[in-house]
């Protein structure tokens, strides 16, 4: 494959106006995730309403007017301790329920449970979460940027381009490689941007400890995985747009695939089909969720996700390049 041609296609890919919109959308998502994490960055304790009975005095932290404030850690530690008799009620505290027993028919009393919260931005813990959140949007951004690349060509300059490079299959495959590299580079750029924001946020309003070589290795692997998902998604968007000559068809198809995924996944006969929808494996890859207890049907390993998505992308690229070679330009 000609490097000169690849270089040209990459320039063409990155020079489009949609790229500005796409990058802005990506930056906005990354920024949104960081702003959310930054807004939650605090060490103040949470107070949760509760109804209690028979909580020993040692757990009392202080009074808020007539309402006792108990230490959450202390109450949690009681677990099955001081309560006797039948458990009547469960009160949820921050996602964790604990039993409040009826002790000899004693009356339930309102109280506040205080739990120490450390939600400070801690890059070594929160960056992997940020990457996980931006993973799936990166897949869609990749599809959008790839599908708009060739669909725009068909209405405009493809005939002129073919007067300079008439080897159509080569032209299509070079465009495919360009959108894959382009998607991976954009994902990398946004991951670096996310890292920069996380570091600045952690340094100013959080904690920056724990960033050792091992951690960097793991985050590089995370980034590489999302880049891979975006890179595999790109030729899918390109192929569908080439076949339909419509960007919106490709984007709509992959968005619609999520709905189909939900419908098929809800049926016993549909689950094996859902497993092989490319968006299933691509999203599993992007968000790093594999195994039977995830939302991604039948995708149990990263290698499995990679294989399913890659085989579909390869098959669709081969089919589309053959069609592109024979297509008449009118």
């Amino acid at each position, binding site marked *: 494959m000609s490097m*000169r*041609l690849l*270089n*040209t296609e990459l*320039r*063409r890919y990155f*020079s*489009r*106006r949609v790229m500005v919109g796409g990058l802005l959308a990506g930056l906005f998502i990354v920024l949104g995730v960081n702003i959310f994490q930054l807004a939650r960055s605090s060490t103040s304790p949470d107070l949760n309403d509760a109804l209690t009975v028979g909580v020993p005095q040692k757990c009392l932290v202080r009074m808020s007017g007539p309402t006792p404030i108990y230490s959450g850690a202390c109450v949690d530690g009681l677990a099955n301790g001081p309560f006797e008799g039948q458990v009547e009620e469960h009160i949820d505290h921050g996602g964790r329920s604990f039993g409040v027993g009826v002790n000899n028919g004693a009356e339930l009393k309102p109280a506040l449970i205080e739990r120490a919260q450390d939600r400070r931005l801690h890059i070594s813990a929160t960056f992997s979460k940020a990457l996980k959140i931006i993973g799936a949007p990166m897949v869609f951004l990749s599809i959008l940027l790839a599908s708009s690349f060739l669909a*725009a*060509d068909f209405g*405009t*300059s*493809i*005939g*002129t*381009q*073919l*007067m*300079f*490079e*008439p*080897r159509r299959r080569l032209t299509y495959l070079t465009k495919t490689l360009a959108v894959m590299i382009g998607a991976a580079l954009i994902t990398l750029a946004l991951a670096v941007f996310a890292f920069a924001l996380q570091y600045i946020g952690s340094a100013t309003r959080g904690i920056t400890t724990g960033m050792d070589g091992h951690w960097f290795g793991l985050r590089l692997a995370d980034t590489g995985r999302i880049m891979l998902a975006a890179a595999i998604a790109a030729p899918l968007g390109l192929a569908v747009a080439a076949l339909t000559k419509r960007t919106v068809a490709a984007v709509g198809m992959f968005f619609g695939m999520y709905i189909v995924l939900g419908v098929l996944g809800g049926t016993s006969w549909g689950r094996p089909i859902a497993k092989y929808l490319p968006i299933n494996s691509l999203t599993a890859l992007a968000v790093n969720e594999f195994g039977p207890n995830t939302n991604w049907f039948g995708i149990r390993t990263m290698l499995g996700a990679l294989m399913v998505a890659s085989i579909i992308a390869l098959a669709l690229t081969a089919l589309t390049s053959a069609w592109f070679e*024979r297509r*008449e*330009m*009118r």
Partner: protein
Amino acid sequence: MTAAISIEALTKTYAARGQQVRAVDGLDLEIPQGGIFGFLGANGAGKTTTIRAIVGHMRATSGTIRVFDMPVPKHLPSIIDRVGALVEAPLFFPNFSGRKNLSLLARSRGFPQERVDSVLATVGLTDRAGSRFATYSLGMKQRLGVASVLLKDPDLLILDEPANGLDPPGILEMRKLMRDLSAQGKTVFVSSHILSEIEHTCDRVAIIARGKLVRTGSVQEILSTGTTSRYTVKVPGDSAVRDNAARSLLAAGWSVFADEHGEMLVDVAAERAHEITAHLANDGLWVSELAPVARTLEAAFLELTADAQGGAQ
């Protein structure tokens, strides 16, 4: 010397609205190297389909096309740098500037970027080179299309309706450009349905109608084609005398017309022109002038394609 383009028995059919349309029907054509070759035909005659087949945008249903003696589209990649083509409307990325569009094309073939500015200057687009293609007028788009053709400095230029959208000065510039290129030894293959344009520019022409070759030859050969010529006939005297002469000729079966100035025109085979004077003299009318009217390519074209057009109707 091998022909620049050699077409043998080219046929192209395609389906349109459930029917098979034969756009090109057994076309044989040879375009020699050098000079400006005009490709004439009415709208829908098959000019653009032929050009698309030459540049590989369409596959021929049957027949062969050779460019510089290489069969196309199979060997198009090996001769693509020698061929520049502008097929119908020039197509570029609308949101890129003219310069950016050309720059990317140049880069794909490894041409120096200075060449981009050079061709932009040649077509007079330097001032607007930085503007988005979408903002260009039809004429400017056409100029950019021609610039993209010149980018490769090709030996063969294929221009499909290059005067489309150009204003009169632009048409003159285009005509001059084609002549300059021809003077450099390049072959210019230009299709058009504007016959006066072809007549003033081309050395040789081919006329096609309904996908078939009707006639090919030098412009002079085409102009001298036909069985009748038109003559201006003047008789001394007032309009009454002229009317008498016209009535006399009409009565004798001649085809008599009046031009926009009221002058009498008669269609007659060249070898029988003298019979006009003899006939009028017999009626006591003396001819003061009997001059052939210069024949236009348009007249020749209409006469040559009359059968095909009639068949089409």
